[in-house]
């Protein structure tokens, strides 16, 4: 009898898991289950549809239905998993017509993702308060705009909050960002780098309020604004981007162990504490390569890599997931912001002694038309002199520098390796002295003086 693999979920981690499973086992029966109407789309693209960069939400669907046909993957949309029984090896489902079913599996892959979290603040049941996770969520925001919303408040200046806020601003909405902490993008950037991004956003007309705790959503039926640290801020729509929580309800109920980060605990093969049950993506933990501690990555790039490993193993193959560095990049208006590894603040928080250096340069030779400013900060651990993190802000040439540093960190590159690395140059593309090497030299001087 062919191996039966059930994947709970049908997005980034799930489709990569199912594809990898198919590659490892050509005969397996592979089923993907999602409660949503759409499957296999890019959640990360939603803010860029709101901002008008992408024509419509359905353009975010990465895999057409024929992909599943070609790969012989059984995709079931609008089918919600209601229970997992790891003793009987079954999942129970209900479709949108109310029909229930019990599916047997030999191996299970849990890719239930994460859900936006809204704290129990007064008025949170009002209409016009949106979270951003699904195409439906995005469509509701666009609908509110079409119905005449002119002002918005975005709560939370993390990656998703800022991406949505920029999208709203690009859609012509007067947008205010409210953040509880004293800086924007607190999990990625150090305060000094965050300030640069904040100034740029403010020159684009965005209103950013820091150190404001949201106390109330105001309005009668429909939200009319918020009260944050005593201050009333009026808005036609509110986006709640407090953060996401791993969606572990089904797993917990099934007796699958949850880790210290509240995500599903997995080993290097993405297997949970229950044999034959795997987890991947936003619902699963990963080991941070520098801290050696579990971390909830919540990044699409991690989800697909973990999914591939889970799928290969669930289908009888062998693959391991080596861990994460939290490498992330995004674009706000014309500014690219990228990060990898630990920033200075987090390095200190996990007990490391970091040396940092920051350098400003240009994205092309200074005489070449169109050269734009770029700023690079690196974080170096003092004793082993290894690079443990980088943050880069610039109009271009950010993404692949982040990837280069990330690969270097994984190979335990020292700051001396980085200073002496062999790099490329042509006037339309970069300066003669690679900025990463210069910033490494700056760090070396600090280490030796």
């Amino acid at each position, binding site marked *: 009898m062919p191996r039966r693999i059930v994947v709970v979920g049908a997005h980034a981690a799930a489709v*990569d898991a199912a594809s990898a499973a198919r590659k490892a086992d050509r005969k397996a029966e592979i089923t993907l289950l999602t409660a949503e109407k759409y499957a296999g789309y890019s959640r990360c693209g939603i803010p860029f549809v709101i901002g008008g960069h992408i024509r419509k939400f359905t353009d975010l669907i990465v895999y*057409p*239905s*024929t*992909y599943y046909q*070609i*790969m*012989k993957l059984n995709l079931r949309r609008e089918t919600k998993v209601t229970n997992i029984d790891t003793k009987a090896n079954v999942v129970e489902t209900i479709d949108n017509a109310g029909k229930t079913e019990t599916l047997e599996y030999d191996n299970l892959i849990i890719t239930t993702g994460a859900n936006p979290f809204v704290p129990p603040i007064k008025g949170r049941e009002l209409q016009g308060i949106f979270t951003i996770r699904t195409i439906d969520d995005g469509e509701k925001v666009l609908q509110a705009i079409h119905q005449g919303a002119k002002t918005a408040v975005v709560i939370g200046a993390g990656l998703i909050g800022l991406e949505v806020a920029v999208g709203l601003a690009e859609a012509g909405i007067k947008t205010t960002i409210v953040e509880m902490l004293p800086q924007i993008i607190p999990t990625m950037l150090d305060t000094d780098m965050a300030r640069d991004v904040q100034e740029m956003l403010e020159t684009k007309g965005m209103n950013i309020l820091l150190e404001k705790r949201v106390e109330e959503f105001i309005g009668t039926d429909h939200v009319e604004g918020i009260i944050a640290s005593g201050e009333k801020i009026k808005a036609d729509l509110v986006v709640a981007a407090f953060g996401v929580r791993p969606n572990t309800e089904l797993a917990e109920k099934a007796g699958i162990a949850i880790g210290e980060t509240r995500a599903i605990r997995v080993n290097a093969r993405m297997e949970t504490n229950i044999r034959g049950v795997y987890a991947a993506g936003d619902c699963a933990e990963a080991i941070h390569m520098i801290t050696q501690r579990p971390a909830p990555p919540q990044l699409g790039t991690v989800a697909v890599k973990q999914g591939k490993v889970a799928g290969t193993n669930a289908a009888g193959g062998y693959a391991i997931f080596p861990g994460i560095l939290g490498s992330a990049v995004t674009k706000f208006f014309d500014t690219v912001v990228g990060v990898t590894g630990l920033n200075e603040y987090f390095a200190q928080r996990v007990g490391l002694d970091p040396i940092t250096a920051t350098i400003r340069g240009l994205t092309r030779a200074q005489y070449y038309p169109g050269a734009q400013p770029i700023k690079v900060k690196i974080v170096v651990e003092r004793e082993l002199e290894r690079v443990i993190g980088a943050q880069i802000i610039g109009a271009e040439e950010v993404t692949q520098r982040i990837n280069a540093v990330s690969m270097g960190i994984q190979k335990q590159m020292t700051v001396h390796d980085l200073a002496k690395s062999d790099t490329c140059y042509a006037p339309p593309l970069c300066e003669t002295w690679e900025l990463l090497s210069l910033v490494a030299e700056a760090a070396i001087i600090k280490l030796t003086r």
Partner: protein
Amino acid sequence: MVKVDDYEIPEGLHYSKDWFWIKVEGEKVRMGITDYAQKQLREIVFVELPAAGDTVSANTPFGSVESVKAVSDLISPLSGTIDQVNQEVTSKPEILNEDPFGKAWLLIITPSNLNAELGALMDFSKSVDWHKSLIAKG
């Protein structure tokens, strides 16, 4: 040749819903996978084909095609005996991405039941309609 969306569909061929085209060449039939299939699979890195002299049966897998991310069985649109296997495809699988209807043909067979089996395949205009329905479905 027409293009539906981004996918080429040449005239004069018959098509199966398992992503194959066939071309009747006298007593023989040449077959391969469609442009739509290769574009869904993306960069093809491995092709597994049977040997000349083997037989194939309609609607039955005879090999597989693999890309970095995907893998698909090759499902024969017709029954018959294999006369020629395109060795160039096995040594240079990337030609399936470059020229799926031309130099990346897969097999030449002597069909054993052509008249009956041909009826189950789509002609050019039906194939165009079918491709349009695939695009519409998303």
